[in-house]
């Protein structure tokens, strides 16, 4: 039987990375994800793998770029202000098609903001974040178990698509502890023929994001765009709860989704037909399931810990006919189930 243990969210990400065969971790401390960095500082050298506390988040992401280029499973973790600093490097990696896992345990912004958990980086995470035409598969765990599982999946998807993959969670979930079933270790890592391993006996490989020739560059971008389209077709993930008879559909991810489940249960107790769509990927976003529910005449409550960012994707999915209400918190404070329930009540 698999081992069951009480574990913190950040720790579960680190353990998931170790199980997935992460060979190199680079990071710079920032609250609320420091226990992840501390875990990697201890565990990576024990396993004979690379841990480096860098001089900045910029250095960390560029070292991840380098480690990915030589074929390592590489990762970094940070929180919102550090994630902003890494955008240049992430854009370069997307341009150079480098697989890696980037973890953003979000805190309240803008600027230095506050160390309380938040979901205010939604737009930055789902729209590329840096310059140029690119997207990152963005996974949104809402339990500590998913922190582990989706980190493991992130490594797999990064290699599958040769693209950086994001795992994002609010700082509350990062620091929360829950029961976790420890997963099986990944036994065999994929071969990477494109990696820079020394060109002895084979044609040289090239890793860069630069194309001097104006004829070649659009061709290269077209390939990237086709790749992002494949992600949209194949990688949409979400959980639906109580949708069969729902009049009102809650849409929430991360710890806001946890509060939404409680609000949904409160509503059901009051004989209100409320369901939940919980995106597990926010890029690609589950537009179609929401569009189908809109077609059926559902109303929507978007519950998020930001000024209202995911609500724009929900609006895009459902069009202009259906009513959408925002239930939110911001500035580093929790989104309580009561707030979501009030929004349900107003819509009824």
């Amino acid at each position, binding site marked *: 039987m698999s081992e069951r243990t*009480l574990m913190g969210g950040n720790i579960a990400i680190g353990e998931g990375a170790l199980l997935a065969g992460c060979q190199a971790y680079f990071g710079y401390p920032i609250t609320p994800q420091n226990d992840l960095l501390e875990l990697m500082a201890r565990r990576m050298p024990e396993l004979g793998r690379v841990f480096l506390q860098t001089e900045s988040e910029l250095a960390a992401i560029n070292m991840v770029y380098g480690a990915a280029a030589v074929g390592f499973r590489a990762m970094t973790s940070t929180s919102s202000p550090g994630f902003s600093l890494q955008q240049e490097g992430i854009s370069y990696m997307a341009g150079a098609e480098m697989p890696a896992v980037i973890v953003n345990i979000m805190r309240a912004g803008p600027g230095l903001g*506050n*160390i*309380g958990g938040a979901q205010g980086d939604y737009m930055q995470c789902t729209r590329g974040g840096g310059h140029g035409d690119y997207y990152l598969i963005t996974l949104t765990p809402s339990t500590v178990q998913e922190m582990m599982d989706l980190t493991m999946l992130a490594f797999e998807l990064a290699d599958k698509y040769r693209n950086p993959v994001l795992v994002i969670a609010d700082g*509350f*979930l990062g*620091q*929360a*502890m*829950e*029961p976790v079933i420890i997963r099986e270790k990944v036994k065999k890592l994929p071969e990477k023929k494109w990696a820079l391993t020394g060109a002895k006996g084979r044609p040289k490989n090239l890793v860069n994001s630069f194309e001097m020739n104006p004829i070649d560059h659009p061709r290269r971008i077209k390939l990237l765009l086709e790749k992002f389209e494949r992600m949209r077709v194949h990688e949409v993930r979400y959980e639906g709860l109580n949708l069969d008879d729902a009049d009102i559909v809650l849409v929430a991810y991360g*710890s806001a989704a*946890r*509060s*939404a*489940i*409680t*609000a*949904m*249960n409160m509503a059901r107790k009051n004989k209100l037909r409320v369901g939940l769509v919980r995106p597990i990927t926010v890029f690609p976003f589950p537009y179609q399931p929401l569009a189908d529910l809109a077609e059926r005449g559902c109303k929507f409550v978007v519950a998020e810990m930001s000024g209202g960012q995911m609500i724009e994707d929900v609006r895009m999915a459902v069009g202009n006919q259906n009513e959408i209400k925002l239930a939110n918190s911001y500035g580093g404070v*929790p*989104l*309580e*189930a*009561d707030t979501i329930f009030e929004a349900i009540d107003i819509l009824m």
Partner: protein
Amino acid sequence: MSWEITISGFGGQGVLFIGRLLADAGFNAGLDTTWLPYYSGEKRGGMCSCFVNISDERIGSIFITHPDVGVAMNPAAMKMLEPTVKTGGLLVVNTSLVKTKSDRHDIKVVYVPTVEAAKELGDESVGNIIALGAVIANAQVTSTSSIIKVLNQMLSKDKKQLELNKAALLKGCEYS
């Protein structure tokens, strides 16, 4: 069976630790459990809360607004928790720091001089465990033996601390 517990006080009072003991006891019983620390930048001396959910069903919110059990370790915690404890719930008040009384009649309120009681055991740092004892004696969240089992696991390397903590737990159980 579902318990929502909020413990609140100053950083340094052991708020997170007693939350952790409860969470581990719930986890050991095979129940779904969440433990969430909630504090701002400063730790020692700043405001600190701990949310613990224990349930035999899938737990939704990791945040707690209306606890079944509240533990108010300082005056600010009293102000925050006293109005929010669910009807029929329990409020444990640390009278070493909280000088006000609750005027609610729909909840059980237990007043515990945690520091004075701990001093009687020779170490005022176990005031938090005294408060936890009062929780266990007055609400069916978990049992004394379950908490002692967790203490045995956590403090196995420090026999002196282990015995002190066990004694504090039993002393806390005397308050009702």
